[in-house]
């Protein structure tokens, strides 16, 4: 377990070796999940808190399931039911939680940068970013990589590199923490990333981003796509005002059944969820065999187990997954 960082705040924290390690460890834990009793003692005696200042059912459930499958004690803290509503500051909340004694805190917040700030405030406690504002959602990107790797021949020699893989990310990249993590993650493994969006839904600057191309014409790139990842138009973040109408957006950027036919036969379709069927993805496309959206959810647990294990675990993986 060489150079795994103390916290997972951003995909920038992980180099290709560390990503490869997460994927290989996730393979072992995926096997655990298929057992009749899917539980191992890897994190017995360790305490993990989920601090969700923004609603999320699926990500929280995924992290909590991951921690419980490794026998960690899990405390669940949500802003709606806590002292945050009474006006307690973020810093005081973190200090309280740390005083209770945590080995890891898993944080989701609507403001970019909160996990990074929390990581500066805590001692001897790993911080995992479960999504912050428009910034990063690293475990989502890792589970996408895992899902892609699975479809390329899962865990076999050489599949920890994505050299030459053509990845197309479509939609509201400007407001997407998932896209920011995905771009870094795919590029770290050697994939060529193309962004497709109306100019208003791209970040104001792409200076220094590891991307191969930007396009405003989805039809033109579909034939040269091995992995297509669709992003939700984040209406709750005001994204609706960045395009004239949803209908116009869908006409240009939704993956319709007609467009799905233009993809190469081996291409796969990903979506981080929650999907808005009919806006960015047609309902029948989401049901295609090439759509790995349900696999992504299942893989999320194994990948999050791997992340928690690498941040907190001691001893060998062989013992941990036994």
């Amino acid at each position, binding site marked *: 377990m060489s150079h795994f960082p103390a916290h997972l705040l951003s995909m920038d924290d992980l180099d290709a070796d560390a990503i490869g390690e997460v994927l290989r460890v996730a393979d072992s834990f995926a096997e655990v999940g298929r057992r009749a009793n899917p539980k191992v003692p890897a994190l017995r005696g360790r305490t993990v808190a989920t601090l969700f200042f923004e609603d999320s059912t699926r990500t929280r459930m995924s992290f909590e399931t991951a921690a419980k499958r490794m026998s960690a004690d899990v405390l669940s803290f949500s802003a709606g039911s806590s002292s945050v509503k009474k006006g307690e500051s973020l810093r005081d909340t973190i200090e309280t939680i740390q005083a209770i004694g945590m080995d890891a805190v898993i944080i989701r917040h609507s403001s970019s*940068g909160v996990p990074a*700030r929390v990581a500066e405030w805590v001692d001897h406690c790993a911080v995992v970013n479960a999504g912050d*504002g428009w*910034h*990063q959602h690293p475990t989502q990107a890792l589970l996408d990589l895992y899902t892609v790797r699975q479809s390329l021949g899962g865990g076999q020699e050489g599949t920890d590199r994505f050299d030459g893989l053509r990845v197309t990310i479509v939609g509201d990249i400007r407001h997407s923490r998932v896209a920011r993590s995905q771009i870094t993650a795919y590029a770290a493994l050697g994939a060529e990333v193309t962004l497709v969006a109306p100019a208003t839904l791209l970040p*104001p600057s792409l*200076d220094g981003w590891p991307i191969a191309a930007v396009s405003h014409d989805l039809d033109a790139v579909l034939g040269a796509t091995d992995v297509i990842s669709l992003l939700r138009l984040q209406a709750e973040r005001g994204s609706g005002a960045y395009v004239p109408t949803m209908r116009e957006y869908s006409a240009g950027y939704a993956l319709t059944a007609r467009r799905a036919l233009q993809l190469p036969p081996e291409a796969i379709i990903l979506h981080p969820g929650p999907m808005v069927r009919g806006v960015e993805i047609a309902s029948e496309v989401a049901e295609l065999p090439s759509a790995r959206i349900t696999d992504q959810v299942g893989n999320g647990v194994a990948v999050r187990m791997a992340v928690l294990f690498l941040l907190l675990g001691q001893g060998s993986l062989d013992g941990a997954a036994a």
Partner: protein
Amino acid sequence: MSAPHELVIRGGTVVDASGERRADVRVVDGEVVEVAEGLEAPGSATVLDAGGCVVAPGLVDLHTHLREPGREEAETVESGTRAAALGGFTAVVAMPNTDPPLDSAESVRNVYALAQGAMAQVAVAGAITVGRAGERLAPMAELAALGVHLFTDDGDGVQSAGLMRRALQYATGLGVVLGQHCEDRSLAAGGTMHEGAWSSRLGLPGMPSEAEEVMVARDIALARATGGRVHFLHLSTAGSIDLVRRARAGGVPVTAEVAPHHFTLTDGYASGYDPVFKVNPPLRPQDDVDAVKAALVDGTADAIATDHAPHAPELKDLPFDQAPPGMLGLQTALALAVTELDLPLARILALLSWQPAVIAGLDPAGGGTQGGTVATGSVANLCVVDPTATWTVDPTALASRSRNTPYAGRTLTGRVRHTVLAGEPVVIDAEAQR
């Protein structure tokens, strides 16, 4: 401590708008009575050592948020003017975005009353519009009659071009100056930092340079059309600087200030999401920082103004997008200029003392006592600066009630040694005397 009957400042070099010369300065009852080499001091006189130092007119800050009334947990007139005195300032222009805002004679009189006995002269900037709401003009003539010379809705720009034009027309009849915080809300709303490579990467909503520049361009056109005097507050972009440079070359009556953080810090400082680096206008990329420095060198910028903006620590512990913008500035401005600018000290003092004094109407020609030459008959508002002393910024050692300096731990060159306010040494050897 009140002003001593007689004060002698010995061993320094006097620098003011008339030039520089080796001279001691004798002050009797608050007034400079003698400026010459080798002055004797009677035993009853207070003597300040100025060996190796520059003796200059006190600094004048065009842009100070004293927070009182309304935000006394962040700063008060007392704590803010103590910080000013320690920074070498003998006058500050208090911004009107208090609670209540300074948009009426009553509220202005209240600040004057709070400033009785303060450690620096407090001039008040009045609001341009009632409640700084940008809808109708504040009673500018009533405020001007109380001595208000600079008007601004600072914190916000006047969004309506029509209202700004009317305010400028009205101001021409009063001889006052309108200060503009240039920020077009339709472009900047929701922004938390400079819009660019860093904001894109950090996933933070940005404020584009154009949000500032379109209002600079608009107000230049309005100043040209009306003849009204516009002073641009805290300009931060290369484009703004260029607009002002060309306007002045064309004879449009505009002046401009820049803030120390805009010539010392870039937007990359926000990369750790620490709100101590959040400010309006935001920190900009290096090209803009270079343009701000160039504006000071070529004279496009008339003044360095601190935009001293205290905020209570708990507000700066909020997430970046929720924390209020603003930085402390009074105690670091001079040293940052000395450390970071490639300018002789006399030019730096011009930018921090006599040029802003004129813009604020606090200079002798404007009927005031700030920024004038150090000469017989002038009021002794002075600062004594050691231009080679180094010191390290310690937020907990600052006089402000707040701690939000972005320069914690930085070692700076240039230190205010003594500050004299109307003959009273309010700071001696970098220690506040009250």
